[in-house]
């Protein structure tokens, strides 16, 4: 750790100590139990730690960071009283909780304690505020400007995936890299996400309007699959094992020139650990490319936010809301500015956030908040690998996906 960082860290820690003394209880009346569950990554650590400052004066705060929180949350919130009073979720996970009717509408709490919130932070369904969003995320383009320069290209030449393919071919021809491209294409959830992203770039709907009937076996579906396959031909043959950790390591190892990766990885790529100055200085971010003549970035926008459990007492719910509001305060953002693309007042967008911001600016769609989306996502992740390995046609893969989805959707009672 550099001297400056040590200093900044000490200063922050000291500031937190002071604020914790001043904030104890955060003005929560009486005794309350707050327990928070969420995923395990640095930005959420910052939020949870700031929320924890409200402990004291009869208020207890327990936090649990767990990578498998998705599997824990439904059973944990189904009991009464719920095991956790607050959970941090994203678009997709909120749907799972809402499907099981485990989320408390927050309109009254927002009115009482939500003065500092931006209107865009309120996630509402049918007029009921279900979650408070505090950060945004999306997969977008990472590119090495130094390598593009070597083949006579600039950032303007990689705005569509067709151009990305062309640039990759030039890099290969120039003998710089044999496999310059990577996406998070590990069979399963990651690959499913790539399908969803690419398909959203066509602007078509995945379901017949107002129903749970899937409709992806069409020209746009074929174009989606073919683009994924062409991109995979510029990816290392191991591409079906690539998750975010793998692609980040490859990027930092200087093995990639063009990659579509999560915005939450930018800070890790830019820091002074695990990479060389050459790679770090050449790394730049841009909006997710569009493709197939469309103008929508082939990516989906995600938000992370918190919800309050339905099955807890009103007092605990209010205390949890106040604690989480303290967790997403402007002071927290100022102390952790680069940890995420925050949606909170006081955030100063940095280079790390430029890709997510550009993707949102170019009009990317949010990840579909549909109750049956998870089933299609799972079907895509499982059935696409065969196609990408060259074992079957795009039409066959799409009809397999539809069949797998339909079977799952029937079992879940959607069809």
């Amino acid at each position, binding site marked *: 750790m550099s001297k400056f960082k040590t200093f900044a860290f000490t200063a922050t820690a000291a500031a937190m100590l002071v604020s914790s003394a001043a904030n104890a209880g955060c003005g929560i009346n009486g005794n309350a139990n707050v327990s928070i569950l969420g995923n395990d990554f640095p930005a959420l650590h910052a939020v949870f730690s700031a929320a924890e400052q409200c402990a004291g004066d009869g208020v207890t705060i327990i936090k649990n960071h767990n990578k498998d929180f998705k599997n824990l949350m439904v059973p944990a919130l189904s009991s009464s009283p719920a095991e956790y009073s607050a959970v941090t979720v994203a678009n997709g996970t909120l749907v799972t909780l809402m499907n099981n009717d485990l989320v408390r509408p927050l309109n009254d709490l927002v009115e009482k304690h939500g003065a500092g919130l931006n209107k865009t932070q309120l996630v509402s369904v049918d007029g009921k505020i279900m979650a408070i969003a505090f950060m945004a995320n999306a997969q977008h383009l990472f590119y090495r400007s130094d390598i593009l320069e070597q083949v006579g290209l600039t950032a303007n030449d990689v705005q569509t995936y067709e151009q990305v393919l062309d640039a990759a071919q030039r890099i290969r021809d120039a003998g710089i890299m044999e496999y310059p491209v990577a996406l998070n294409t590990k069979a399963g959830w990651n690959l499913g996400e790539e399908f969803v992203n690419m398909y959203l770039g066509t602007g078509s709907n995945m379901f017949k309007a107002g129903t749970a009937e899937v409709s992806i076996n069409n020209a746009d579906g074929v174009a989606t699959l073919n683009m994924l396959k062409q991109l995979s031909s510029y990816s290392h043959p191991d591409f*079906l094992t690539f998750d975010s950790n793998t692609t980040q390591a490859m990027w930092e190892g200087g093995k990639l020139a063009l990659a579509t990766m999560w915005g939450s990885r930018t800070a890790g790529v830019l820091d002074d650990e695990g990479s060389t100055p050459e790679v770090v200085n050449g790394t730049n971010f841009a909006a997710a490319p569009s493709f197939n003549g469309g103008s929508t970035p082939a990516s989906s926008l995600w938000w992370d936010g918190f919800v309050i459990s339905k099955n807890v007492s009103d007092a605990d719910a209010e205390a949890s809301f106040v604690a989480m509001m303290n967790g997403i305060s402007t002071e927290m953002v100022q102390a952790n500015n680069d940890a995420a693309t925050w949606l909170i007042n006081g955030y100063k967008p940095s280079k790390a956030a430029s890709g997510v911001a550009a993707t949102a600016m170019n009009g990317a769609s949010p990840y579909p908040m549909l*109750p049956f989306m998870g089933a299609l996502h799972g079907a895509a992740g499982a059935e696409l690998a065969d196609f990408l390995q060259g074992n079957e046609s795009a039409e066959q893969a799409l009809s397999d996906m539809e069949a797998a989805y*339909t079977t*799952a959707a029937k079992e879940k009672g959607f069809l």
Partner: protein
Amino acid sequence: MPHRTFFWFILPSLAAMVLFIAFPIISVIIQSIHVEHEQVLISVENCGPFGCKQITAIDAEATALLKADQPLGQFSGLDNYTNRNHLAFKEVSKAWHSSESVGAFFSALLNLPFYKALLFTLSYTFVVTPFVIVLGLAIALGVNGLPKLAKGPTIFVSLLPMIVTPLIGSLILFWMIDGDGVIGATLKYLFDDPNLSLKASPTLTWIMLFVYGIWHSAPFSFIVFYAGLQTVPEDTLEAATIDGANRWQRIRYVVVPYMMPLVVFITLMQLMDNFRVFEPIVGFSSEASATSLSWIIYNDLTQDTQLFGSAGATSVLTIVGVAILLLPVLVRTWRDFNRKSH
């Protein structure tokens, strides 16, 4: 022992078995013949950081009423077993009638997730099991012939693959076979092929998983055989030597027959264990090229949309599979037992 005493002796373990084995299996069977109640869908406006949109959502109140009516969900009979994600009767019969050759039929069959997983599961079971037995016996014989001082350390080292947690062991190997890992890089050098990748082709992935399975399980059969070797009667071996039997003949005609009960025991254990192969598939990230029945269950339960009925059906099919596999060995043991007792 009088029946009464026997009953009281066995009661605690019987109770534990009913509680921890029979009840969960019954619960899984019940889940496997139900699907979730119908979801009442409504169209609502959804607003968030990225704007407002009309979406389809579940009507929580109406759905809760349906749920209260049928807490188990809708009874679906064997639908979960026969649908496309399991035995796929409809798809299989369609493939049978429309395929022009046996090859085309099999490729259509292996396009279905259950059969694809079953093929790998069975291949893994029938490749790994014999190798584990033969290799385990070979190591046991080798270690048994070592001088006394060297035995302890050798046994310890030979047991290491079994001591390592399967998931950790497969992760370590996964990194070693990476193009930049020690095994991957060596293979690239040996075959003089810079693009060689053990993770890319399904065939190499299968072989890698088989090798891992043998590496992981051989110590188990080794230690069982080694214990067995200590009890082989010296007299018989000496008699065989005097009769002019060489080392190979002594192993073939004295040691192996003497150890047959152990071979049966290890075969049973290995068939069961290998049929439930799971950790290496996760550890080696090989979902694209190889899946197993246990992996399908895991996948049904861990994706965004959890499918309990589906997972239950696969679990029951796995139990049936294990029973079929073990049947020949069990029948044989039963016959031997009857012959001896009469």
